[in-house]
């Protein structure tokens, strides 16, 4: 393997910052908007997706030389579905309450385009280690994205964080935040923030070159 450490670090950071699945690529919006009513749900969904992403990419990468291209999508779907089923059992074993809260969205990880996208675009063309590193980065990026929605929605919509009450008894929860529209509002606000930052950085750069 010829990769240097910096390359691997870039591989990992790609999913967290430059190609963050939620804020940059806006992929996987269905679970993003649906399960982020609380930080715990967001975190567990993020971790479940990360696990599926890493395991599937590892297997896809290991099998990349023996999978004929005609049947690659079918193969990837079977592999992804396998790990989703495993995660499904695992979450049932950990907590049925969490399982109920995440509901159908655990099974829907199968059709999360982040995973199929990674398998097709990255894992099928790269050796095991870079593939897993990249998948881990994407998974962590996805988890961070979910968490940034989940925490905001839980704080505003229920006045708690990870189930711990933050405000006094007189806190009047902003209920719409835990309802589906709240997901769009919070996602929109985050995207706005990132777009504003990007534009400001661009303007600064332009000014700097202008002065020089």
């Amino acid at each position, binding site marked *: 393997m010829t990769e240097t450490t910096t390359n691997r670090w870039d591989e990992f950071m790609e999913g967290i910052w430059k190609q963050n699945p939620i804020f940059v690529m806006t992929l996987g919006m269905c679970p993003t908007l649906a399960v982020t009513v609380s930080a715990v749900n967001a975190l567990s969904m993020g971790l479940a997706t990360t696990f599926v992403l890493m395991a599937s990419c590892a297997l896809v990468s290991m099998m990349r030389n*023996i*999978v004929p*291209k005609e*049947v690659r999508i079918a*193969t990837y779907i*079977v592999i992804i579905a*396998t790990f989703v089923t495993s995660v499904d059992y695992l979450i*049932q*074993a950990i907590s049925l309450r969490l399982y*109920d809260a995440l509901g159908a969205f655990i099974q829907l990880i199968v059709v999360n385009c982040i995973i199929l996208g990674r398998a097709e675009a990255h894992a099928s063309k790269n050796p095991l280690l870079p593939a897993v590193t990249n998948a881990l980065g994407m998974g962590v990026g996805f988890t961070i994205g979910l968490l940034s929605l989940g925490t905001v929605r839980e704080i505003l919509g229920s006045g708690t964080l990870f189930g711990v009450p933050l405000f006094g008894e007189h806190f009047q929860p902003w209920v719409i935040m835990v309802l589906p529209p709240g997901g769009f509002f919070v996602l929109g606000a985050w995207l706005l923030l990132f777009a504003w930052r990007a534009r400001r950085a661009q303007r600064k750069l332009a000014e700097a070159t202008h002065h020089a």
Partner: protein
Amino acid sequence: MSEQTMPAAQTPTVAMIRTLGLVAAICGLIIVGAYEGTYDAVTANKKLAIERSVYQVVPEAKSVVEYHALPGGDVVPAGDAKTPDGAIRFFAGYDADGKLVGVAAEAGAKGYADTVRIMFGYRPDCQCINGISVVSMRETPGVGDKIRSDKKFLANFDKLDVRLKDDMSALAHDVVTVKHGTKTDPWQIDAISGATITSRAVGRGIDAAAQALLPKLVPNLNKLASKS
């Protein structure tokens, strides 16, 4: 399928089948492993969830004994035995003095996405259902899953009438779910508007379970009256 799109290197069908077979075999092994590995924990969790819902629908209960209502019409304590064929499992809740305060049983019916399984509490003194709790469901978050939290809907299960006919063969009135806002009788369930399918599933499930269990349970209530 892709003879036209992939003109360069044709993969022989055998290779495709071989790869798919290999992938299927590996994936099958992984799933079986995951199932076996988590089986004990999942069963323990489910048992705990059932016990929790029994105490929820019979809140006065201090202890719970599992019973089986046999097809012949007898009720026997379950012990550690598995539920025999055709028998119905239910739970008798006793207060601190060992007096029967209520009976809990499971009901299930097909909802919008999957079977909605609930636990309901039956009270012998009023011959009514008092309280339900959801054991498992897959209903749409924010729509069907309101049966867990909608206060107006849950108010249906404050003394829902399940009296038996005089000959104890069936319920005097079937439990039915009616359209939101049209409940007139104590054996009707007022559906949640927007979640009618799930509300109906709850009604159908309770009706089926009560029709099956109560004709066997009620004649034997004296047997259960105090904790043995």
